[in-house]
Protein backbone atom coordinates (compact mmCIF):
# COMPACT_ATOMS: atom_id res chain seq x y z
CA UNK A 1 0.00 0.00 0.00
CA UNK A 2 1.10 3.52 -0.62
CA UNK A 3 1.26 5.81 2.41
CA UNK A 4 -0.57 9.07 2.23
CA UNK A 5 1.56 12.15 1.58
CA UNK A 6 1.08 13.42 5.11
CA UNK A 7 2.24 10.15 6.59
CA UNK A 8 5.22 10.12 4.27
CA UNK A 9 6.11 13.67 5.24
CA UNK A 10 5.83 12.83 8.93
CA UNK A 11 8.10 9.83 8.40
CA UNK A 12 10.78 11.85 6.67
CA UNK A 13 10.60 14.75 9.10
CA UNK A 14 10.79 12.27 11.99
CA UNK A 15 13.85 10.58 10.49
CA UNK A 16 15.47 13.96 10.01
CA UNK A 17 14.79 14.90 13.64
CA UNK A 18 16.33 11.62 14.81
CA UNK A 19 19.34 12.39 12.64
CA UNK A 20 19.61 15.89 14.13
CA UNK A 21 19.36 14.60 17.67
CA UNK A 22 22.08 12.04 17.00
CA UNK A 23 24.27 14.80 15.55
CA UNK A 24 23.79 16.81 18.73
CA UNK A 25 24.72 13.75 20.79
CA UNK A 26 27.91 13.46 18.76
CA UNK A 27 28.68 17.16 19.25
CA UNK A 28 28.17 16.84 22.98
CA UNK A 29 30.56 13.90 23.13
CA UNK A 30 33.19 15.80 21.15
CA UNK A 31 32.87 18.66 23.61
CA UNK A 32 33.14 16.22 26.49
CA UNK A 33 36.45 14.98 25.14
CA UNK A 34 37.92 18.35 24.19
CA UNK A 35 36.91 20.69 27.01
CA UNK A 36 39.39 21.18 29.83
CA UNK A 37 37.70 20.85 33.23
CA UNK A 38 34.67 19.51 35.06
CA UNK A 39 32.37 22.51 34.79
CA UNK A 40 32.88 23.01 31.08
CA UNK A 41 32.54 19.27 30.48
CA UNK A 42 29.28 19.43 32.37
CA UNK A 43 28.23 22.23 30.06
CA UNK A 44 28.96 20.00 27.06
CA UNK A 45 27.25 17.03 28.67
CA UNK A 46 23.88 18.77 28.91
CA UNK A 47 23.52 18.92 25.13
CA UNK A 48 22.87 15.21 24.58
CA UNK A 49 20.91 15.02 27.81
CA UNK A 50 18.38 17.70 26.94
CA UNK A 51 18.32 18.71 23.28
CA UNK A 52 19.57 15.46 21.75
CA UNK A 53 17.08 13.31 23.64
CA UNK A 54 14.29 15.79 22.90
CA UNK A 55 14.88 15.79 19.15
CA UNK A 56 15.31 12.02 18.92
CA UNK A 57 12.14 11.30 20.84
CA UNK A 58 10.07 13.86 18.92
CA UNK A 59 11.31 12.19 15.75
CA UNK A 60 10.30 8.77 17.06
CA UNK A 61 6.85 10.12 17.96
CA UNK A 62 6.47 11.50 14.44
CA UNK A 63 7.33 8.12 12.97
CA UNK A 64 5.15 6.00 15.23
CA UNK A 65 2.10 8.33 15.30
CA UNK A 66 0.18 6.51 18.02
CA UNK A 67 -1.36 8.16 21.04
CA UNK A 68 0.01 5.85 23.68
CA UNK A 69 3.48 5.87 22.19
CA UNK A 70 3.48 9.65 22.11
CA UNK A 71 2.42 9.65 25.76
CA UNK A 72 5.24 7.31 26.73
CA UNK A 73 7.74 9.43 24.83
CA UNK A 74 6.47 12.59 26.51
CA UNK A 75 6.93 10.87 29.86
CA UNK A 76 10.50 9.92 28.94
CA UNK A 77 11.26 13.52 27.96
CA UNK A 78 9.68 14.77 31.17
CA UNK A 79 11.71 12.50 33.42
CA UNK A 80 14.91 13.17 31.51
CA UNK A 81 14.46 16.93 31.82
CA UNK A 82 13.56 16.50 35.49
CA UNK A 83 16.49 14.38 36.58
CA UNK A 84 19.25 15.90 34.46
CA UNK A 85 19.67 19.10 36.48
CA UNK A 86 19.72 17.17 39.77
CA UNK A 87 22.74 15.13 38.78
CA UNK A 88 24.40 18.08 37.09
CA UNK A 89 23.94 20.26 40.16
CA UNK A 90 25.39 17.68 42.51
CA UNK A 91 28.36 16.98 40.25
CA UNK A 92 29.14 20.70 39.91
CA UNK A 93 28.78 21.26 43.64
CA UNK A 94 31.08 18.38 44.43
CA UNK A 95 33.55 19.59 41.80
CA UNK A 96 33.65 23.04 43.37
CA UNK A 97 34.13 21.72 46.87
CA UNK A 98 36.85 19.25 46.01
CA UNK A 99 38.81 21.84 44.01
CA UNK A 100 38.12 20.49 40.57
CA UNK A 101 37.46 23.90 39.07
CA UNK A 102 39.99 26.39 37.80
CA UNK A 103 41.05 29.17 40.14
CA UNK A 104 40.57 31.87 37.48
CA UNK A 105 36.84 31.71 37.08
CA UNK A 106 35.26 34.86 35.72
CA UNK A 107 32.56 34.97 38.37
CA UNK A 108 32.93 33.20 41.69
CA UNK A 109 30.22 34.43 43.99
CA UNK A 110 30.36 31.23 46.00
CA UNK A 111 33.93 31.76 47.17
CA UNK A 112 33.31 34.65 49.52
CA UNK A 113 30.29 32.93 50.96
CA UNK A 114 32.20 29.75 51.63
CA UNK A 115 35.36 31.51 52.82
CA UNK A 116 33.62 33.28 55.66
CA UNK A 117 34.07 32.10 59.19
CA UNK A 118 31.92 29.00 59.29
CA UNK A 119 30.71 28.75 62.88
CA UNK A 120 29.03 32.12 63.23
CA UNK A 121 25.49 31.74 64.56
CA UNK A 122 23.00 33.48 62.33
CA UNK A 123 21.18 35.28 65.14
CA UNK A 124 24.33 37.20 66.13
CA UNK A 125 25.97 38.43 62.96
CA UNK A 126 29.22 40.27 63.42
CA UNK A 127 29.11 43.74 61.83
CA UNK A 128 31.39 43.52 58.86
CA UNK A 129 32.04 46.59 56.70
CA UNK A 130 33.35 44.53 53.80
CA UNK A 131 30.19 42.52 53.71
CA UNK A 132 28.00 45.62 53.70
CA UNK A 133 30.04 47.13 50.90
CA UNK A 134 29.77 43.95 48.94
CA UNK A 135 26.01 43.65 49.21
CA UNK A 136 24.60 47.11 49.82
CA UNK A 137 21.00 46.40 48.91
CA UNK A 138 20.50 43.61 51.44
CA UNK A 139 19.41 44.43 54.95
CA UNK A 140 22.56 44.89 57.01
CA UNK A 141 21.05 43.47 60.20
CA UNK A 142 20.38 39.88 59.31
CA UNK A 143 23.66 39.17 57.55
CA UNK A 144 23.38 37.28 54.32
CA UNK A 145 21.69 34.03 53.53
CA UNK A 146 24.15 31.16 53.34
CA UNK A 147 24.47 29.87 49.86
CA UNK A 148 23.94 26.25 48.99
CA UNK A 149 23.43 23.59 51.55
Amino acid at each position, binding site marked *: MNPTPWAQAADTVGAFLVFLGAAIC*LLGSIGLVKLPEVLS*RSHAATKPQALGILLVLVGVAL*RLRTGIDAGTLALI*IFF*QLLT*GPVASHLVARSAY*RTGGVHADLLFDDLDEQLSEEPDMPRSHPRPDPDREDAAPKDGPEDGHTPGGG
Partner: protein
Amino acid sequence: MTVFEWIDRVLLTAAVVMILLAGALLLVRLWLGPSMLDRAICLDVTAALIIAGLGAQAAFSRDPFYFPIMLVLAFLGFTGSVAIARFIAVRDRPTAAGREATVEEDRSA
Protein backbone atom coordinates in the same frame (compact mmCIF):
# COMPACT_ATOMS: atom_id res chain seq x y z
CA MET B 1 10.42 1.09 -1.89
CA THR B 2 10.07 4.73 -2.71
CA VAL B 3 12.80 7.32 -2.65
CA PHE B 4 11.50 8.78 0.59
CA GLU B 5 11.88 5.46 2.34
CA TRP B 6 15.45 5.34 1.12
CA ILE B 7 16.02 8.80 2.51
CA ASP B 8 14.57 7.73 5.85
CA ARG B 9 16.72 4.66 5.95
CA VAL B 10 19.89 6.58 5.16
CA LEU B 11 19.11 9.23 7.78
CA LEU B 12 18.39 6.67 10.48
CA THR B 13 21.48 4.64 9.68
CA ALA B 14 23.58 7.79 9.85
CA ALA B 15 21.95 8.60 13.18
CA VAL B 16 22.86 5.19 14.61
CA VAL B 17 26.44 5.55 13.34
CA MET B 18 26.75 8.97 14.97
CA ILE B 19 25.40 7.66 18.26
CA LEU B 20 27.93 4.83 18.18
CA LEU B 21 30.72 7.32 17.44
CA ALA B 22 29.56 9.46 20.34
CA GLY B 23 29.70 6.41 22.59
CA ALA B 24 33.26 5.70 21.48
CA LEU B 25 34.30 9.28 22.29
CA LEU B 26 32.60 8.90 25.64
CA LEU B 27 34.72 5.84 26.33
CA VAL B 28 37.80 7.96 25.59
CA ARG B 29 36.76 10.47 28.22
CA LEU B 30 35.89 7.66 30.61
CA TRP B 31 39.40 6.31 30.15
CA LEU B 32 41.18 9.66 30.40
CA GLY B 33 39.01 11.43 32.94
CA PRO B 34 41.22 12.75 35.69
CA SER B 35 38.67 12.68 38.47
CA MET B 36 35.66 10.60 39.36
CA LEU B 37 33.39 13.54 38.59
CA ASP B 38 34.33 13.43 34.91
CA ARG B 39 33.37 9.79 34.91
CA ALA B 40 30.10 10.64 36.65
CA ILE B 41 29.29 13.12 33.88
CA CYS B 42 30.16 10.41 31.38
CA LEU B 43 27.74 8.08 33.13
CA ASP B 44 24.92 10.59 32.67
CA VAL B 45 25.71 11.06 29.01
CA THR B 46 25.90 7.29 28.59
CA ALA B 47 22.33 6.94 29.82
CA ALA B 48 21.27 9.70 27.42
CA LEU B 49 23.05 7.96 24.54
CA ILE B 50 21.42 4.62 25.33
CA ILE B 51 18.03 6.34 25.29
CA ALA B 52 18.89 7.98 21.97
CA GLY B 53 20.09 4.69 20.49
CA LEU B 54 16.97 2.84 21.54
CA GLY B 55 14.94 5.71 20.12
CA ALA B 56 16.74 5.41 16.80
CA GLN B 57 16.06 1.67 16.82
CA ALA B 58 12.39 2.31 17.56
CA ALA B 59 12.24 4.83 14.73
CA PHE B 60 13.87 2.39 12.37
CA SER B 61 11.63 -0.58 13.08
CA ARG B 62 8.50 1.35 14.17
CA ASP B 63 8.37 -0.79 17.28
CA PRO B 64 7.60 0.57 20.75
CA PHE B 65 8.97 -2.55 22.45
CA TYR B 66 11.92 -0.84 24.18
CA PHE B 67 10.05 2.20 25.46
CA PRO B 68 9.84 0.96 29.08
CA ILE B 69 13.62 0.56 29.14
CA MET B 70 14.02 4.13 27.93
CA LEU B 71 11.57 5.28 30.60
CA VAL B 72 13.43 3.52 33.40
CA LEU B 73 16.77 4.85 32.16
CA ALA B 74 15.33 8.36 32.02
CA PHE B 75 14.32 8.42 35.63
CA LEU B 76 16.94 6.18 37.21
CA GLY B 77 19.96 7.09 35.12
CA PHE B 78 20.96 9.98 37.33
CA THR B 79 21.28 7.99 40.57
CA GLY B 80 24.71 6.63 39.76
CA SER B 81 26.30 10.00 39.19
CA VAL B 82 24.54 11.43 42.22
CA ALA B 83 26.02 8.65 44.33
CA ILE B 84 29.49 9.29 42.89
CA ALA B 85 29.24 13.05 43.45
CA ARG B 86 27.88 12.59 46.91
CA PHE B 87 29.95 9.80 48.38
CA ILE B 88 33.01 9.00 46.31
CA ALA B 89 34.31 12.28 44.91
CA VAL B 90 34.66 13.83 48.36
CA ARG B 91 37.32 11.31 49.30
CA ASP B 92 38.94 11.28 45.87
CA ARG B 93 40.76 14.63 45.57
CA PRO B 94 42.86 14.74 42.43
CA THR B 95 44.07 18.33 42.87
CA ALA B 96 43.41 19.15 46.50
CA ALA B 97 44.73 22.70 46.46
CA GLY B 98 45.00 24.58 49.72
CA ARG B 99 42.01 26.88 49.58
CA GLU B 100 39.48 24.36 48.44
CA ALA B 101 40.79 21.69 50.79
CA THR B 102 40.45 23.89 53.85
CA VAL B 103 37.03 25.07 52.78
CA GLU B 104 35.99 21.49 52.25
CA GLU B 105 37.18 20.45 55.69
CA ASP B 106 35.43 23.35 57.34
CA ARG B 107 32.17 22.94 55.54
CA SER B 108 31.94 19.21 54.96
CA ALA B 109 29.35 18.54 57.65
